[in-house]
């Protein structure tokens, strides 16, 4: 008798016990997915929920590791006045152990809190409902630390995770039943509940908020600025970062969202593994480019002049929008969430297009909400079932018509 069999027998023996779902959660995590067909398998596929989730996590790991380096880099850049990276993506100034450790020790607690609290709630709900724990939180738990500012207090994150998992997911019936993307629900909660920790030019650099408070308390220190590109653009200021910096990700921002290069790699991996929908990613990029182009044209035509408060963001070259803010990350990892996105292929085109379109629209017209992509995805999550409904109805209509032609 092997370990696997022992565990199985243990499970059978203790059937109906209250804590059993907790045990079988760990059991299924290690060995088997929820249910296995016993006779007459029809389609054999290896990608169950758990493997799907793991693939997404793998696609995010480069962003996470880069985020750790970048957190340290931004910190040293702002505090110690080190040289800015000059030699492209693999510059030695960036990939130092010191940079990594600063980020690592800041990000590790975020990851632990996110997973600890989220999985804790999943366990509690599984025990109350008496069903198996689903692996639904695996991806959310990794996404959450990647989309928050590095200095976010841990208790705020914990509160937000409780809110996001319970209100965003469990009340609808758990994994696969949620209307809104849970990770974005968590971020939206943080954004509206504690705006001082979620936006502005201080929160993106490790230690900047603490420094600010020390100055406010009367200590004689230099203020640290970690201005974001979106912030500078909205105020019509000169942007302090080159396009290459934006693409490689040597800019302040949420932990995982800065490096467009690594996000593209992750996206390609998801497309290759057939887990992320390329339709959504592509149409979202097209949507963003379309609205960016329209704004550029408006500026060129002289309708908007430099005195307008929208001038800064509207005159930004349209393709820059893809590189700055959380657009790339949101498009690749959050808009493509198979539960909350549109399900039909045609629907995905509409869904993605509007995600991109509305993201940039919010970004430009409401600088108070710099992360338009979060709100755009949440909004389109709500509309996804409607889009699907019309796509399906349209198809039904078309077929009925064809039937009529044939029989006539």
């Amino acid at each position, binding site marked *: 008798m092997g370990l696997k069999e022992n565990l199985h027998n243990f499970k059978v023996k203790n059937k109906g016990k209250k804590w059993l779902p907790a045990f079988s959660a760990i059991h299924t995590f290690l060995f088997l997915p929820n249910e296995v067909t016993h006779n007459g398998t029809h389609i054999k596929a290896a990608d169950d929920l758990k493997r799907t989730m793991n693939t997404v996590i793998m696609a995010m790991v480069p962003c996470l590791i880069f985020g750790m380096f970048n957190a340290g880099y931004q910190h040293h850049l702002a505090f110690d006045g080190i040289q800015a990276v000059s030699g492209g993506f693999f510059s030695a100034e960036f990939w130092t152990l010191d940079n990594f450790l600063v980020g690592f020790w800041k990000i590790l607690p975020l990851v632990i809190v996110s997973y600890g609290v989220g999985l804790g709630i999943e366990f509690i709900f599984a025990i109350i409902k008496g069903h198996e724990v689903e692996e639904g939180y695996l991806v959310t738990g990794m996404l959450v630390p990647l989309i928050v500012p590095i200095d976010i207090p841990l*208790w*705020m994150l914990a*509160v937000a995770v409780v809110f996001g998992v319970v*209100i965003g997911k469990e*009340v609808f019936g758990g994994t696969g039943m949620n209307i809104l993307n849970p990770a974005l629900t968590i971020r939206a909660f943080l954004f*509206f*509940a*504690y*705006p*001082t920790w979620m936006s502005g030019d201080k929160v993106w650099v490790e230690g900047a908020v603490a420094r600010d408070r020390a100055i406010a308390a009367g200590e004689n220190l230099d203020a640290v600025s970690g201005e974001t590109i979106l912030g500078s653009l909205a105020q019509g200021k000169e942007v302090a970062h080159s396009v290459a910096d934006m693409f490689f990700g040597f800019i302040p921002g949420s932990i995982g969202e800065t490096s467009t290069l690594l996000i593209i790699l992750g996206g390609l991996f998801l497309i290759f593994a057939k887990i992320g929908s390329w339709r959504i990613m592509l149409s979202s990029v097209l949507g963003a480019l379309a609205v960016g182009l329209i704004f550029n044209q408006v500026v060129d035509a002289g309708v908007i002049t430099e005195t307008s408060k929208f001038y800064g963001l509207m005159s930004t070259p349209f393709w820059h929008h893809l590189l700055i803010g959380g657009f790339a990350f949101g498009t690749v990892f959050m808009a493509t969430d198979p539960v909350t996105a549109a399900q039909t292929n045609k629907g995905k085109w509409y869904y993605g297009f509007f995600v991109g379109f509305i993201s940039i629209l919010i970004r430009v017209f409401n600088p108070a909400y710099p992360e338009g992509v979060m709100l755009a995805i949440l909004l389109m999550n709500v509309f996804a079932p409607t889009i699907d409904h019309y796509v399906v109805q349209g198809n039904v209509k078309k077929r009925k018509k064809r039937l009529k032609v044939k029989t006539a």
Partner: protein
Amino acid sequence: MGLLSKKDTKLITDPLADNNPITIQVLGICSALAITAELKASIVMSISVMFVLGLGNVVISLMRNIIPSKIRIIVQLTVVAALVIIVDQVLKAFAYELSKTLSVFVGLIITNCIIMGRFEAFALANGPWKSFLDGIGNSLGYGVILIIVGFFRELLGSGTLLGFPVLGDPIAKTGLYAIGYENNGFMLLSPMALIVVGIIIWVQRTRNKALVEDH
């Protein structure tokens, strides 16, 4: 036997829990979302609605045999509107600041579905005493939810209760704020009121399975 018979007591206690106008009948939601950011406003709103609904029920009940059924809605509206104007004037005279906070929502009591609902469903078919009790009961049920929501929203959103700082001073960093606590700005926005009401509905239906609707 006390002042009320068993049946009469039920008229008051039923809407408090198992037939609550907000959580069970899902009426009067708009005002519950709009004015519950402060506990004080919730309490004043509850009292206003109690006045309007209690008296309105009595008036409609007294007139129930002479109102032509074709124009009864108009008659009901006139009664509510008259009572709401009284409330509004009283608030403006004695609690001006508060009436500014409540702003348009005092006037909107006229369109509060609970009031028209009780007129239609109860006062038109019952005597004045019973109607009065029904009105008080329903407005109490409405008020209870408003006050619960207002309590949580003000406590978590502003750190105060009825305007008194109970969690310490957020600017001087005393009390809870000294250890890094911060007010939850989301609590002050209307969507959070909807979520708090939702949680109350959830708790209530978990405790009493009979309330869960079948599909």
